[in-house]
């Protein structure tokens, strides 16, 4: 099934769009993962901070307790050193812990630590006041230990929840990476599939194009062959017609030579008879002798005259056919022909008749140069101008105008006159062999325009006439700018 051009374009565009969408999905997923990784990494860092500061806090509180125990047991103030350090560090660590994002249990922890520190301070103050036994009593009471346990528990809980958070974040990161991997694989596979489909479509379309092009080329070649064959047939038919015309006119001539020859012989014999009658004079006056004299004097010369006129007319016609057939067989040789020069020369050739009739030939505008057979064009325009001069309207100064109407690859030359014109029913007839139109007051055999049309058609053009009887005629010769001679017509 052939892919129509439209379907092909639609399919290709859809495939490209789908590929772009798959690519976009991959990119979006990657971006999401990057963002997720960033926020989760921050989370993890914060959770680790919490854990660190929670331990430190515990260790600070333990330091403070260690200092208090040492002092309580020895009464030596130097043991209070860790307690004092712890007192300084405690707010710092608490602030750091808070900054790491711990919110809910921080209050409980603070209270416990405050309680512990207060207990420590109280006992230290008691020892300083010399009430050591009372201070020991408080320690032994176990309240401080219980608070310490609570602090430891809180710290443990903080640490555990931090660990859990880190764990959870890492797991979700892994999940997201897995999602990205799947999306990338899926998208990649899709893109490959789409690319393959697009490639396949292009390949198929290209293959169809190639097939179609080959078919077109084949058809063209066949068409050319057919045209060549037709042209060959036509050329052959044309050649046959020409040969036929040649043979016919030739064979007609042979008997005509006899008719004419023996007519002359008759004339010669008639001369003998006339001499005889001149000698005998009117010696015999019988009716038959008178009739014979009349025959020799009038009838026979008249008959011979008619025979002669007819044979010479027939000879003219045969010559015309011969000329046409010979012209048709002539090999055309295209060359650059300046129509302006050609028309000027054609009108120079009838200069004498023009002056005699007070007529003019004018070239309107410029006439182009064509590539064609010079001799044929000379005959065509020579005939047309000759006709225009010949068939002017008496009593009206003849005006013959020649102009060109250029077209793309052809040119139309108009030969216009203000002569006697051609009746509408004769517009086609005047181009036929031996046909003439209008008053027969001019010499001619009726071959000029037939010859012109045959020539123009051989040159690849045509001739038409537009005319109003009594007003003038315009002959239009339409010619190709460049005559192409096929080799066959030359053979």
């Amino acid at each position, binding site marked *: 099934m052939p892919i129509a051009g439209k379907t092909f374009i639609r399919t290709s565009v859809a495939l490209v769009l789908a590929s772009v969408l798959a690519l976009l999905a991959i990119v979006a997923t990657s971006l999401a993962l990057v963002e997720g990784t960033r926020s989760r990494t921050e989370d993890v860092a914060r959770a680790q901070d919490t854990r660190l500061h929670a331990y430190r806090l515990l260790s600070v509180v333990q330091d403070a307790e260690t200092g208090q125990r040492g002092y309580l047991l020895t009464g030596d103030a130097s043991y209070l050193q860790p307690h004092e350090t712890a007192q300084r560090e405690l707010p710092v660590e608490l602030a750091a812990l808070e900054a790491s994002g711990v919110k809910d249990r921080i209050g409980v922890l603070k209270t416990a630590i405050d309680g512990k520190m207060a207990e420590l301070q109280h006992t230290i103050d008691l020892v300083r006041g010399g009430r050591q036994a009372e201070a020991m009593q408080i320690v032994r009471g176990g309240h401080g230990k219980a608070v310490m346990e609570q602090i430891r528990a809180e710290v443990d809980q903080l640490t555990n929840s931090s660990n859990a958070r880190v764990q959870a974040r890492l797991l979700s990161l892994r999940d997201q990476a897995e999602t990205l991997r799947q999306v990338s694989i899926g998208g990649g596979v899709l893109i490959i599939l789409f690319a393959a489909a697009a490639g396949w479509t292009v390949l198929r379309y290209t293959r169809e194009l190639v097939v179609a092009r080959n078919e077109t080329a084949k058809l063209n070649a066949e068409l050319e062959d057919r045209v060549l064959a037709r042209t060959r047939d036509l050329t052959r038919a044309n050649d046959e017609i020409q040969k036929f015309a040649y043979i016919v006119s030739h064979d007609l*001539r*042979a008997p005509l*030579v006899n008719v*004419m020859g*023996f007519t*002359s012989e008759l004339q010669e014999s008639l001369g003998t008879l006339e001499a005889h009658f001149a000698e005998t004079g009117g010696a015999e006056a019988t009716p038959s002798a008178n009739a014979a004299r009349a025959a020799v004097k009038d009838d026979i010369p008249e008959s011979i005259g008619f025979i002669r006129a007819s044979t*010479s007319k027939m000879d003219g016609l045969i010559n015309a056919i011969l000329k046409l057939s010979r012209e048709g067989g002539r090999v055309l040789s295209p060359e650059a022909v300046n129509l302006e020069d050609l028309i000027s020369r054609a009108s120079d050739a009838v200069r004498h008749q023009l002056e005699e009739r007070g007529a003019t030939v004018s070239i309107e505008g410029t006439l182009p140069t064509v590539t064609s057979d010079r001799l044929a064009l000379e005959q065509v325009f020579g005939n047309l101008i000759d006709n225009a001069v010949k068939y002017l309207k008496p009593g009206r100064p003849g005006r013959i105008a020649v102009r060109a109407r250029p077209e793309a690859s052809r040119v139309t030359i108009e030969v216009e006159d203000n002569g006697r014109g051609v009746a509408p029913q004769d517009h086609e007839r005047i181009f036929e062999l031996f046909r003439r139109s209008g008053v027969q007051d001019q010499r001619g055999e009726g071959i000029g325009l037939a010859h012109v049309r045959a020539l123009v058609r051989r040159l690849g053009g045509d001739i038409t006439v537009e005319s109003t009887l009594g007003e003038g005629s315009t002959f239009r010769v339409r010619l190709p700018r460049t005559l192409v001679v096929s080799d066959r017509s030359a053979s």
Partner: protein
Amino acid sequence: MSNGKPVCIVMIEDDEGHARLIERNIRRAGVNNEIVPFTNGTDALNFLLGDDGSGAASEHRHLLILLDLNLPDMTGIDILEKVKGNLHTRLSPVVVLTTTDDQREIQRCYDLGANVYITKPVDYEGFANAIRQLGLFFSVIQVPEIG
């Protein structure tokens, strides 16, 4: 110059009317030589070159050939070629008579060795004149004997 053996005119012309007109005009010009007429090419060639086609038959003849180009069995060109290609007949003058005034055909005849080419015009007077002049022409020439 050989002995005065008379020249024999061989007229190859299928149209008897033409043959008769030509003969009359030749006679009118005062030429009384023997005229041997042929109406087809085969008979004419048999006469000119002999039955064996060698041309030996014409070895001692003095011939002048009037040749029409349109013959029923062959063209005058064929005859012209054979006559001009044969050792014994090639020196015989050949006058081509035809209705054709085609330049190429005329040239071809001259190329093949035709001596005179006369177009048979319908204008009979011109034709008759040409024949008569031809008659005068061969009343003064003596065809050389071969060998």
